């Protein structure tokens, strides 16, 4: 076999081997925790007072037994899952550990399918509605069409327009849903999975605490809502997952995945630098 060492495709082979190798022997590396991740954990652990609407400040005391948390699986979760998976698992584990009542909604079939395949079975098995938590501390609305218009209508009553969960069970008969109806007052905390537009629906008017989770590139468009004070914290990408694992002490795989990221970043950086040195040298020769 004649190997051409200048073939740039070798770099992809090296990247693949590095990912494969570092996945087999994961090592946890030191990682700086950014402010929005610290605040995300602080909201869940200690709580926050939201006063975007100064007339009616709202105090949230952190996630405790029975805290009503709505998870809005309503962004690009299906596409970003490879970058969000471990963070969502760590946060979900923490919510369950603290005894939260989790209500899940998916805004698209794709988003529902991705959680059905990679998240829900991890926590509740292959038949979630038979799990002992179902109806007590977890309810899945599944895919309900309507997007943010739906959230706008749910603020006054969820059951008025969405009377059943994804399995057809009447929400009125589910124990967890007895005090979980008018989202503007009944929902203690909203966690958006790459969700947009929550500021105008819930934060500006009702001071509902909102946390956001997304892929690394989601930070670009979610950051301004965070810096403006609408989101109380954010967890972005596998890096955010690693940060949450560190802050919460919950063991997970995100920390180890950072070794992959670091190795790839090093290879790409070296390739860019070497390519530019070659370019500069060739320009001097001509």
């Amino acid at each position, binding site marked *: 076999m004649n190997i051409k060492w200048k073939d*740039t495709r070798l*770099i*992809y082979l090296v*990247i693949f081997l590095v990912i494969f190798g570092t996945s087999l022997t994961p090592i946890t*590396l*030191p*990682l*700086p925790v*950014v402010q929005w991740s610290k605040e995300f954990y602080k909201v869940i652990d200690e709580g926050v007072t939201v006063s975007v609407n100064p007339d009616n400040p709202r105090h949230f005391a952190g996630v405790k037994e029975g805290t009503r948390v709505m998870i809005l699986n309503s962004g690009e979760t*299906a*596409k*970003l*899952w*490879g970058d969000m998976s471990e963070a969502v698992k760590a946060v979900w584990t923490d919510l369950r550990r603290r005894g939260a009542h989790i209500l899940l909604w998916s805004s698209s*079939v*794709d988003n*529902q*399918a*991705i959680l*059905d*395949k990679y998240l829900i079975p991890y926590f509740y098995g292959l038949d979630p509605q038979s799990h002992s938590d179902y109806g007590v501390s977890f309810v899945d609305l*599944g*895919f309900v*069409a*309507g997007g943010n*218009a*739906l959230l*706008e209508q749910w603020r006054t009553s969820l059951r008025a327009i969405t009377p059943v969960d994804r399995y057809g069970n009447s929400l009125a008969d589910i124990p967890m849903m007895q005090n979980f109806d008018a989202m503007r007052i009944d929902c203690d905390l909203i966690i958006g999975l790459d969700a947009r537009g929550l500021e*105008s*629906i819930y934060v*500006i*008017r009702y001071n509902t605490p909102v946390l956001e989770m997304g892929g*690394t590139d989601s*930070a*670009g*468009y979610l*950051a*301004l809502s*965070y*810096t403006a004070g609408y989101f109380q914290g954010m967890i972005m*990408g596998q*890096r955010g997952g690693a940060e949450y694992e560190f802050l919460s002490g919950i063991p997970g795989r995100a920390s180890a995945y*950072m070794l992959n*990221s*670091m190795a790839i*970043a*090093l290879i*790409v*950086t070296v*390739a*860019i630098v070497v*390519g*530019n040195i070659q*370019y*500069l040298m060739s320009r001097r020769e001509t």
Partner: protein
Amino acid sequence: MGQQSQTNIVQELPTILGVIGLFIIASLYWTEPGWEGALVIRNATTLSLPFATIITVGLLIRRHARNIIRREETTPYDAITIGSAVLIVLLGLVGGMADPTMAALYANVNVIGTMAVISAISISVFSPMIRIYRAKTPIMGFLILLSILALFTYTPIGEMIHPAIPRLGDFVQIWISGASDSAFWISTYIGAVALITRMILLKERLRP
């Protein structure tokens, strides 16, 4: 020239007024207690969304059926597109999302396919970074430095070199990238409202 501009503005006056009107109606969704008329329009819009989806699927099938009738070179692709679209529509109409076949298709084709495409896009980003990221101009050099800064910010490397590196990367992400992204979306939304207004005023051809 001045008269031409004046004529254009006069011609577009209904569009301008329509855009302003739509913004006002949309804004009234968010006020308390709100305006009942805005809520009615919002509800009507929500209810009409599935019809837009139906029309889009119909147009998709019609376009590919036309290609097959004309015996275009893309016939195999057209046949697969129509077949898969009709299959999904039929499964949805018969059993909805609870249908086991539909669920299995989503879990094993759609989910895997989406992640494969996204992974392929991510990996392919490396290709131009490695092959054509050359500092031929000062701007290109600046972009290369920003790319390396991003790589060092979102991995432990930056922190290992100096704590200021991830801080600088976060600043770029929040303020520069965040602001430009918001500007993009705001301008996109304004453009979308203008387009909808022109469609309502029958100023846009609706034929695909």
